[in-house]
């Protein structure tokens, strides 16, 4: 799937994360992360974002993530929602899993 426009998902509530996703040409996946728990969990958050995108067949995207202490399942859900909002055609991630 190709990211053709910008979109976002999530909130700034505690335990949530906002994910903004934009086209990134052919430069792969780049992640810009702000997190209240960056020192402890920054690498894990990046890993979940990256793996979720790869699992959805996204090869190129610029991601801005603003984390307020989200657990992995919430990060995954927000990434899936952001992607489903910007890709063309039906996107039903639960069918792909």
């Amino acid at each position, binding site marked *: 799937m190709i990211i053709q426009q910008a979109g976002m998902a999530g909130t700034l509530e505690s*335990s949530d994360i906002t994910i903004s996703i934009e086209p990134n040409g052919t430069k792969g996946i780049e992640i810009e992360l702000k997190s209240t728990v960056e020192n402890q969990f920054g690498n894990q958050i990046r890993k979940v974002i990256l793996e979720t995108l790869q699992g959805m067949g996204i090869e190129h995207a610029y991601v801005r993530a603003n984390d307020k202490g989200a*657990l*992995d399942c*919430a990060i995954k859900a927000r990434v*899936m*929602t952001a992607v489903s909002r910007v890709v063309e055609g039906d996107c*039903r991630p*639960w069918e792909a899993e």
Partner: protein
Amino acid sequence: MQKLRRTMLYVPGNNPGMIRDAHIYGADSIMIDLEDSVSLYEKDAARLLVYQALKTFDFGGTEVLVRVNPLNTPYGRDDFEAIVRAKPTAIRLPKTETADDVIEADELITEIEQKIGMEHGTIKLFAAVESGKGALNAAQIAVASKRLIGIAIGAEDFVTDLKTTRSPEGIELLTARSLILFAARAAGIAAVDTVYSDVNNEEGFASEVELIKQLGFDGKSIINPRQIEIVNRIYTPTEAEIQKSKRIIEASLEAEAKGSGVISLDGKMIDRPIVERACRILDLAEAAKINVE
């Protein structure tokens, strides 16, 4: 012991923190909501969040239901597709008006269960009646599917449909509550009362819980963990009720051991319904963590 549903706690479906913490307060059931507490612009986000959360979190012994959007909205079908896969105990159907609404949901769940190789009947249904038409059809709704484990009344939509408002005494809900309760009892499923929206009015809430307990409801939908303790207190049997129930059960077992069909206690005959009531009292006592041994 029959599953107790004294409290069914609403949890907004687009709030990760609330979903994660919902089971820690001690409600018998939690009901994660994709319908009224989620804005039209966030339906997709909530659906995916609940799907991921249910696949991840261990809610312990707490029963988990998910309230989906009605099938006649653009969101309903996708809600079913995602939530059946996430495997809650039950899907709660809002605004159920006819037996056909339940049958349609049952068939869709069957279709999805088959598609993903899930055993038929894994996902249960819980119907919420929220209109005059639904209340009149409650008896048919309650027997429309073997998946159905309970029926609830949703009062806010109901009083709007009736062109009235909610009163402290709840007179406007009496007929609907009774119809739903009779339907549930005839079908052998649970009956759960509506929410009480004014969280700060503990006296009013307690009074409504007393009423619905006396009517015969299994429990109440609640919107705040603070309401759990009040419901549990009202549904917890007194020490005298527990002691009497224990003696009734003992007399019943004694009569059974003797092969006698007649049970007597303190010179009075004990009927089968009295034994059933005693069993329920001991179930409620156990749920309140009272030692009944």
